[in-house]
């Protein structure tokens, strides 16, 4: 235990640098996946066939490709097409795109869970599609969508570790580097695990809060 604490104080500063990048990757891809997911979901429920079909295809395409392959594609293949991204950009873009499919399905489920009578009531006071979405459907859908959204946040935080495969020096990669140079695997990876856990706990509590709120109806 004493040894572990000594290792901890020694490695903590380096690992914390990794935490900064982990948070950056998670937040960046969270924002991107939310925006894209909202866009896919809107296209899906637009009632315009071309849009909903395009969106369905995109979602399935994205869902069918592992995140790690998507990351490799963005980081190693895109330069062949003249698009060179930094590792951080590729990580945020890759995770953002990958998770947009799950976000979209989550948002769609929330939108479709709203009673059709709400849409009709909005229409009968003269609201068009967009106004109905903005004033009536989305505010109600948010409550339904938030708990699963919180879960996606937790998954994204953990999956940000996949960015290590394309050289983003986030928490997991920093840990691996320290471990391979010091051979203190136990201390290092226990620390890494604890740090992920520490970041997850507030999110887990947030999900519980959302669930309680949604449960109240």
């Amino acid at each position, binding site marked *: 235990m004493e040894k572990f604490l000594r290792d901890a104080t020694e490695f903590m500063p380096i690992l914390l640098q990794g935490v900064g990048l982990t948070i950056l990757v998670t937040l960046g891809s969270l924002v991107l996946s939310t925006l894209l997911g909202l866009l896919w979901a809107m296209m899906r429920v637009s009632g315009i066939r071309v849009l909903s079909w395009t969106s369905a295809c995109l979602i399935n395409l994205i869902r069918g490709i592992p995140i790690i392959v998507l990351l490799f594609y963005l980081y190693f293949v895109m330069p062949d097409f003249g698009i060179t991204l930094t590792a951080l950009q590729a990580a945020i873009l890759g995770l953002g795109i990958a998770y947009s499919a799950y976000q979209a399905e989550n948002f769609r489920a929330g939108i479709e869970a709203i009673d059709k009578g709400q849409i009709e009531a909005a229409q009968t006071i003269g*609201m068009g599609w967009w106004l109905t979405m903005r004033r009536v459907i989305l505010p109600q859908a948010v409550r339904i969508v938030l708990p699963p959204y919180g879960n996606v946040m937790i998954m994204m935080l953990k999956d940000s570790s996949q960015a290590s495969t394309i050289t983003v020096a986030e928490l997991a990669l920093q840990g691996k580097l320290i471990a391979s140079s010091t051979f203190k695997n136990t201390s290092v990876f226990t620390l890494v695990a604890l740090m992920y856990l520490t970041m997850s706990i507030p999110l887990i509590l947030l999900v519980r809060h959302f669930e309680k709120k949604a449960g109240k109806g």
Partner: protein
Amino acid sequence: MIELRDVHKSFGKIEVLKGITASVAKSEVVCIVGPSGSGKSTILRCVNGLESYEAGDVWVEGTRVERQTSSIHAIRTKVSMVFQRFNLFPHRTALENVIEGPIHVKREPRREAIARGHELLAKVGLAEKATAFPAQLSGGQQQRVAIARALAMQPSAILFDEPTSALDPELVGDVLSVMRKLAEDGMTMLVVTHEMGFAREVADRVLFIDGGIVVEQGTAKSLLSQPQHPRTQDFLRRVLHPL
């Protein structure tokens, strides 16, 4: 004001409206009665474009109702609708429900809309419930808020789709008396209802619909007291004397 000419409507292979011709004049109250599944609600829904129709014409104040055109939004602000299940916006208070259309659709100044919203809530007897959410209101109160919401659009006519069918019996009276007041004020109303007492007292005319056609129509008194068609007679006997 509202005119239907030989309107046909099918859901898949089932033809629900088989040529409906009817009209509602300004300030007239017309009740539609008839058995379940006869197409009563569908008629209302065709009038404000919630449903499309395949043949015939529906006119509202001289504009043909077509679901897929941009004119439909304007028509819907002219003919409001009150639903069986109220369909209030659950995330907004009673007052917010009422002012939603005026502020966001008609773009009225907020202060005016709020002032009139309070007036309308008072008119339906719910002045003190302005800040209540729908979930905190009884069915009858919710329906009266829905009526206030419809009135807030300053419509030329209001469509009522079985407004009291989802209510506990003791709450029906409050809603009907609000509707009666509207009728006395000269509001044009097309009402699908099972409340024969209301139809008899308030309606100028009653249409009896069965199997997607207008079987019989006439003044409320004559149709409800001396129905001519055997199907009307049979229906009224069952409704008025269920035992």
